[in-house]
């Protein structure tokens, strides 16, 4: 197990050091905006806020209310493309 986690750590570190993580993040953000995911989720936020009351909203409330829905709403095409890129990176650098 520790080897596993060690390996993961190494790979993650490589991901960050090479700037690939940042690139992937930007790519994901752009794709999500483009497909309307962000607007959908924002509308959902409004509902949560109206529910909880404008003054009393905390970050935790929002996170708890938004994240599961957000994960589910990501389109398949975006998911596939991102996974493809990650696998490519791993294949290249996980020697």
């Amino acid at each position, binding site marked *: *197990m520790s*080897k*596993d986690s060690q*390996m*993961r750590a190494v*790979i*993650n570190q490589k*991901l960050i050091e090479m700037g690939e*993580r940042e690139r*992937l*993040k930007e790519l*994901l*953000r752009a794709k*999500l905006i483009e497909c309307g995911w*962000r607007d959908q*989720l*924002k509308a959902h*936020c*409004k509902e949560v*806020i109206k529910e909880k009351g*404008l003054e009393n*909203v*905390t*970050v935790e409330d*929002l*996170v708890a209310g*938004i*994240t599961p829905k*957000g*994960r589910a709403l*990501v389109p398949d095409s975006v*998911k596939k493309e*991102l*996974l493809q890129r*990650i*696998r490519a990176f*791993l*294949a290249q650098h*996980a*020697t």
Partner: protein
Amino acid sequence: MKMEDMSLSGLDNTKLEALAQDIYSDLVEDACLGLCFDVHRSVKQGYFFLDDTDQESMKEFEIVDQPGVDIFGQVFNQWKNKECVCPNCNRSIAASRFAPHLEKCMGMGRNSSRIANRRIASSNNLNKSESDQEDNDDINDNDWSYGSEKKAKKRRSEKNPNSPRRSKSLKHKNGEFSSSVSTDIYKYNYNTGISYETLGPEELRSLLTTQCGVVSEHTKKMCTRSTLPEPELVMESDGYDVSDGQVLMSRLHWDGSSDISPSDSASSKASTTNSDPKRTKKKKKPSSLSLTAVGVDRGEREDRGGSGSGGVGCSSSSQSALGLPGRKKKPKLPAPLAPSIYDDLN
């Protein structure tokens, strides 16, 4: 299970796949968190709901989807049948015709002045009152320069070429002879705009030996190009001397004018008035290389490509010496012919 097979580098596919999935979900969660922080900040700062329109405005500007009406709810030609009262003449005019009517009524705008001028010119036909000076001058100067000839052609439809000014330009070119002729001709100009039948045979002959006389089908106006031999003018003259050759050559070097090529001017300028008297000149075409050289494409000219009249003039100047003797042979030809053609009219 498979950990024993796992090498140090972790090449196991399932592991890699799991790793990829983990990385992916980390990224998605990052995106969600980013959004949450954004929203929370805007809520706390108070600008979260600002981009929403209130309900009232939403109802007011809602998209309309009815037939016969655009998406704003406006009818298409609602004002088409309404009538407006003209402030100038106090008549009631249909809305769609109101603007052009106003233009003419008040005398402002492009067309109204043109129409007014035309009316004045035609109404002044019988009295020698002065019409617009500038414009008729240009028309009258069509005999001696290429540039104003073009202008004259453009303006022909607007201005009356049979105007009193015509005699003025002929005067300074030909001296006494033509001026006396032109004053005689002057009173015929108006008539020949219509037909040749009203003129007597002598008048007709005197008119047509000095001027072209072809009546345009479009404008019903008579061409007043001079057919007299002129020292300055090359194209119109049917006969000329060797001394004119020098002038001819200087003419060629001048900016290319298809006037210089009489047979060509008819075709190139699309002017119907030039066709008849110039007909005889077309026979000369094979021999007169120099004159046909300028500006118009013909079979003889090799150096047509790209060069303007200047280049042509230079190249053909060498040929002009050849062309001249050839030309000399037939100076008299058109003159006896011209009366015979028009004799039929009598």
